[in-house]
């Protein structure tokens, strides 16, 4: 693969990672949902380009599923939850934004170092992009750890999932349709469950902060 398709793939992968960094930077929860929608569209673009280039019908269907689920349905659901809640800002993250961005830089470097052996297995322009996916996974996990709001937690989880999907597309030229359908549905279900949880929490405690759930241990 070379030329315009490759550029498009590289651009999409870059957008996915940039979305993850944006999610760390922006504290407005509405902005986070737009970031997710952007990421979903970028992933779908990447999958479509790969499908057209390889002439794979199954991958094309997967791309469609990704576009619908990750580009529209899930961010839409999230946006609805955010609109319903009044205080829609991540006010006091456990790690502040500048420190988060520094940590993000460290994590991206780490993923490049770790993914070295992985790309060395089968060096190609596509596999060289795999560290971007790994970095997205790590950043998503970082969001999970450091952000307090329930919606931010969902966003973190979706970032991890997008990162995994990106790695899968880049390394294996697409996962089987059935697997992708399964994971998409899984993620959709998780989002719905978390949304219900968030609503219930707000009704009970008047806020989204997960640290209020401390009594639940043992």
């Amino acid at each position, binding site marked *: 693969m070379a030329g315009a398709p490759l550029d498009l793939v590289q651009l999409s992968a870059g957008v996915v990672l940039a979305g993850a960094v944006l999610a760390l930077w922006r504290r407005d929860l509405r902005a986070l949902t737009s970031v997710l929608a952007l990421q979903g569209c970028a992933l779908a673009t990447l999958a479509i380009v790969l499908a057209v280039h390889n002439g794979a019908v199954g991958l094309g269907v997967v791309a469609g599923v990704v576009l619908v689920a990750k580009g529209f349905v899930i961010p839409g659901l999230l946006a609805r939850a955010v609109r319903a809640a009044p205080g829609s800002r991540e006010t006091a993250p*456990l790690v502040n934004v500048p420190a988060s961005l520094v940590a993000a830089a460290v*994590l991206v470097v*780490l*993923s490049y*170092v*770790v993914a*070295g052996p992985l790309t060395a297995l089968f060096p190609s322009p596509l596999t060289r992009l795999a560290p971007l996916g790994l970095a997205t996974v*790590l950043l998503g*996990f*970082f969001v*999970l*750890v*450091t952000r*307090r709001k329930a919606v931010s*937690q969902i966003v973190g989880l979706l970032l991890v999932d997008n990162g995994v999907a990106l790695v899968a597309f880049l390394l294996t030229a697409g996962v089987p349709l059935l697997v992708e359908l399964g994971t998409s549905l899984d993620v959709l279900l998780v989002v719905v469950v978390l949304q219900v949880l968030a609503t219930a929490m707000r009704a009970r405690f008047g806020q989204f902060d*997960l*640290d209020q*759930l*401390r*009594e*639940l*241990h*043992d």
Partner: protein
Amino acid sequence: MSATAYLTGLGAAGIAAVLGALLPTRWRLLGAMVPGALACLAALVGSGQVLLSGRSFSLHVAQVLPFTGIDLSLDPLGALFVATTAIVGLAASCYSVGYGAHRAPGRTATATVPAFLATLLLVPAAASVATFMVAWELMALTSLLALLTEHRQRPETRDAAQWYAGMTHAGAAAVLLGLVLLAAHAGGQSFAAIAAHRGRLSAPVASAVFVLTALGFASKAGAVPLHVWLPRAHPEAPSPVSALMSGAMVNLGVYGILRTGQDLLGGGQLWWWLLVAALGVASAFFGALHAAASTDVKRLLAYSTVDNVGLVLVGVGAAGALAAGGERVPAGLVLLAALFHLVNHALFKGCLFLGAGALQQATGTRDLDRLGGLARRMPVTAALFAVAALSISALPGLNGFASEWLLLEGLLHGFASRSSLTDAALLAGVAVFAVTGGLTATAFVKAVGVGFLGRARSEAARSALEVRPSMLAGGGLLAGGCVVLGVVPGVAVPVLDRAVAATLAGGAPGAVRAGLGLDLASLDGAIAPALLVEGLLAAAIVSWGVLRLFPRGAGLRRPRRSEAWGCGQEPQSARTEITATSFAEPLQRVFADVLRPDHDLEVTHADESRYFPEAISFHQRIDDAVERVAYGPVIGVVARWGRLARRGPNGSVHRYLGLGFAALVLILVFLA
């Protein structure tokens, strides 16, 4: 043919477990126990053919277990254990029909007993490391579930199950390590390949394998100091399961030691077997002592299992030591005696546990101090319990006597061997026989005397009713076995001889001549219990007749009837009777340093004067000293670490996620 019968048995036991889990409540009990009993019969036929013909079978099924497949092989040693299990299993299945019937049987009870039975039948036939470990772990799992059957009725069961799970898991880990090490060095995982390689193993590797596996198997066998689970688990399990655990599962620990030590490693070194004998001596003494001091009838039986396994281990260790020293004939004799005692122990201890279950069902308690007078209320149970108790106390005419006599003869004939260490072990074995013989008799005089004779000590004992016929049939089968093997012990000799020949690398079979009695072929000594029994019967009949015909001449004017344990005085109330606690009291004083009883005496005085007590209550607990000394500190350290670790997770989701993230990043950094 033998393979078909054996596999039919395994399959039937599996079907029984499935039926027990799936059938509706009404049919569940019969649907599980009838196929279970048939499974035992089929397995008995299969293993009996192997034992009688001496021809073993082996087969390989590739599809069942990924990568390795399943290897099954039944040689006379394995067949002896399968046959013993089958007999105990037959009795337990029969007994379960009545035992479960007094209330709606739960799925756990009806499914786990046949499943446990199936795994017990499977273990001795496993012929590769993978098959053996799978069967071994399945046995641990099913027995744990069976043990937990009555956890809703008795919360202590959960505590017992935790101990059992911990000990059996640790033991299985040690066995797995040992066998994997063995397979790696022998260049194959099937037992045949390992056995073919046995001379070429380096000594340190062989020793490491033996010590690891022997410790693992000893924990299953309940040898001191690895016995701590046994006096907890055996009393808390439902009685058919207790009988299977004590009569069959514990044996498999001994089987494991014999299989690895003698068959796979080919005998090995002297010190291995001295170690086994030392474990045996400690178990026999400690178990017998605790049995004599216990007042809970099932706890008493459990400690007595520790005692008897100890005696068998003394025999196994002595046989191994003698064989390692080249004394072939005494080695064969001692091993034959040890295997004979193992079979006998399965019979009488199975019968005793089934009897204890009948007691518990009829009276709702296992505490001997609350029983009494049951011989009149439950005559058949009492008779069966008494036969087994006489048998375990090694009285002539019953099977316990035959095997203990043989074992003692073997130990004595082994003296003046080439190694002074072996001689010392044999001497210790003889001494422990003397001590445990007395202690066991005390324990069972107490169990029968206090439990069945005298007067009822509680309302429950006063109104007890005889249990169902199916339960009595189960116990009767085992008691019948005790009598047959006691009167004509010689019939077991050819079968045992085959097992010895298949096991002992350096030992000679044929140490005992086949016949009705026991006749040591090349050594001095013979007994014929049949003659003894005939003589005793004749003497009893003659004296009864003489007394009947000439009552005056014998000095008996008017026969005076009085209650047993009444000290000749009547009428007396149950409160003045001797209790289990008071019966064991002198012994407790003598062995106070080992038993360390905790007394708790509360005296309430009358308001008017301190000199007139109003009520006195006395409680006594005898905890396991080994558990307190050896396990207490370990558990304390683990609990401290646990408390320390609990400070980390404080309920914050972010902290949990952070720990996971930190672990992921650390692993990635480590990989990079």
